[in-house]
């Protein structure tokens, strides 16, 4: 009796967490899949199974191509550039200099600020008629009349990407910094004695040693950025005609504006599948690390 109880004990410890995640994560996953393969009424009633009907509707719609393309461009450019710039910033901040603590505190700002507010600020900055960027450039005497920074939907999307990069850099920077700080200083001293220059030290010591933490940060970033909703939603709501939509804003509109919950669920499943590839890469990598 006592033995069975002891064997069962760990399960009591994890039970609250399992219940919480089951109800609010696993059940919604199930619901999304059920709706993706069923006919769903405008009011959200789930009717009969219709196979891939919703997927056909979504993939066949004229916006879907551009939405998917936007999502891929958004994810790759934001993750790629923020990783590069965040890494460079980390290299800078890893130097000893006066005011380093202040600089680090400032870099935290965009990470700590909720995305809606950051996006609102940028929406104001790039406004043609009264935006802060035009005011700044006019005051500095660089321009003498207002410039339209967003003449096309593509230009709007480019600004959204810039905003995405801006808010993602701190995360990369700090994960890299922690990696940099764990590198043994004697490695650099030895390399200096051997006559290695800055670039040799960078490519042969720094980058290989920072790579593990950078890889995890990048995979996590791909997932966060792929799922990022507030920036696009705040600045353009995906308009005009889905030209600036990504999958998540597109599915939000389908579900809550157009009453096409079945199709929205299908978009979710497509998003799932794309992320699952990233998830498995991350999991294999993390679990492998754990065994070392």
């Amino acid at each position, binding site marked *: 009796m006592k033995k069975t109880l002891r064997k069962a004990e760990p399960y009591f410890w994890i039970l609250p967490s399992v219940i919480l995640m089951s109800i609010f994560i696993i059940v919604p996953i199930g619901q*999304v899949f059920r709706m993706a393969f069923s006919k769903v009424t405008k009011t959200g009633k789930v009717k009969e199974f219709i196979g891939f009907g919703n997927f056909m509707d979504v993939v066949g719609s004229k916006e879907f191509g551009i939405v998917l393309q936007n999502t891929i461009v958004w994810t790759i450019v934001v993750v790629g550039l923020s990783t590069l710039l965040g890494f460079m910033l980390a290299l800078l901040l890893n130097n000893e200099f006066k005011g380093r603590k202040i600089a680090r505190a400032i870099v935290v700002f965009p990470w700590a600020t909720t995305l809606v507010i950051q996006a609102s600020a940028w929406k104001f900055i790039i406004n043609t008629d009264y935006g802060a960027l035009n005011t700044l450039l006019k005051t500095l005497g660089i321009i003498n009349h207002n410039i339209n920074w967003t003449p096309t939907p593509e230009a709007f999307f480019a600004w959204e990407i810039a905003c995405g990069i801006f808010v993602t850099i701190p995360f990369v920077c700090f994960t890299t910094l922690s990696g940099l700080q764990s590198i043994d200083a004697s490695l650099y001293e030895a390399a200096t004695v051997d006559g290695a220059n800055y670039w040799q030290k960078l490519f042969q010591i720094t980058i290989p040693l920072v790579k593990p933490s950078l890889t995890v940060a990048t995979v996590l970033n791909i997932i966060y950025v792929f799922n990022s909703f507030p920036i696009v939603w705040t600045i353009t709501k995906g308009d005009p005609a889905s030209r600036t939509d990504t999958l998540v804003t597109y599915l939000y509109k389908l579900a*809550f504006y157009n009453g096409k919950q079945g199709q929205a669920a299908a978009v979710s499943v497509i998003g799932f599948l794309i992320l699952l590839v990233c998830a498995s890469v991350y999991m294999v990598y993390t679990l492998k690390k754990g065994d070392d």
Partner: protein
Amino acid sequence: MTLNNKKMPLGKVIARLLLYVVVFDICMLILYPYFVMFCTALKSRTEIFSMNGTILPISAMWSNFVDIWKLAPMGSYMRNSIIIAGGSTLLAMLCGIPAAYALSRMEFKGQTAFLGFIIVSQMFAPVVLLIGIYKVISAMGLTDNILGLVFINAAFNQAFTIWLLRGTFMSISSDMEQAATIDGCNRIQAMIRVLLPVAAPGIVTTLIFIFINAWNEYTVALCLISTEELKPLTVGINIFNGYNMIEWQYLFAGSIFAIIPVVILFMSIEKHLVSGLTSGGVKG
């Protein structure tokens, strides 16, 4: 590296100078949106929309910061944000601490599967599951209810909570707890009296991180809450962001109230958070 100027070669001086210039510029760029928000929050409506605007407000309208409390239920927004963030943190910790304890101190069947599930669950942001979440929440009668947001935030922060805490607990030797058990403590007492005080720094970091996440959450709250008085700050301040007319001065004045507490909290854990992220997450 020596900072003695007399001995420093010219190249090093230039490199140092360049470092300062670049870091300074980056900091200015990062602070720019905040500077814009602050200046705009102090302007009058006519001043903001005038074609010949200035960078700084002509005369600082501090009253904007007062007016928003009359024009919108800012007090409710603030209270809701605190309840949502505080409640989510509490629930996430109550569920996460025992789970992390079991994962770091016991061995059981399905341990790897549970860990795998935690990692995978991290991959799914609420926004992708929003339709499913909406279904579950309305089945429970929790739409337009703060409690619903507490559950969702707590659930979606479980992965992170367990991951960070497991890392913290594993870095602490279990000898003390075993000694306490011999002295007649049961497991729960040993955890509360011996392990948790030692793990306090890690716990506080985790706690603050969840609090910030829940405080900053926007998408789920936007979707689930429709009553103005029940909205958190992130959603509520958009009352000034109408379809046709945006009251920028009020939007940004409200934003500043939403930003300040989080930035202060974040700066306080920045160091611990990063080491926690990589040690808990990478090394396992």
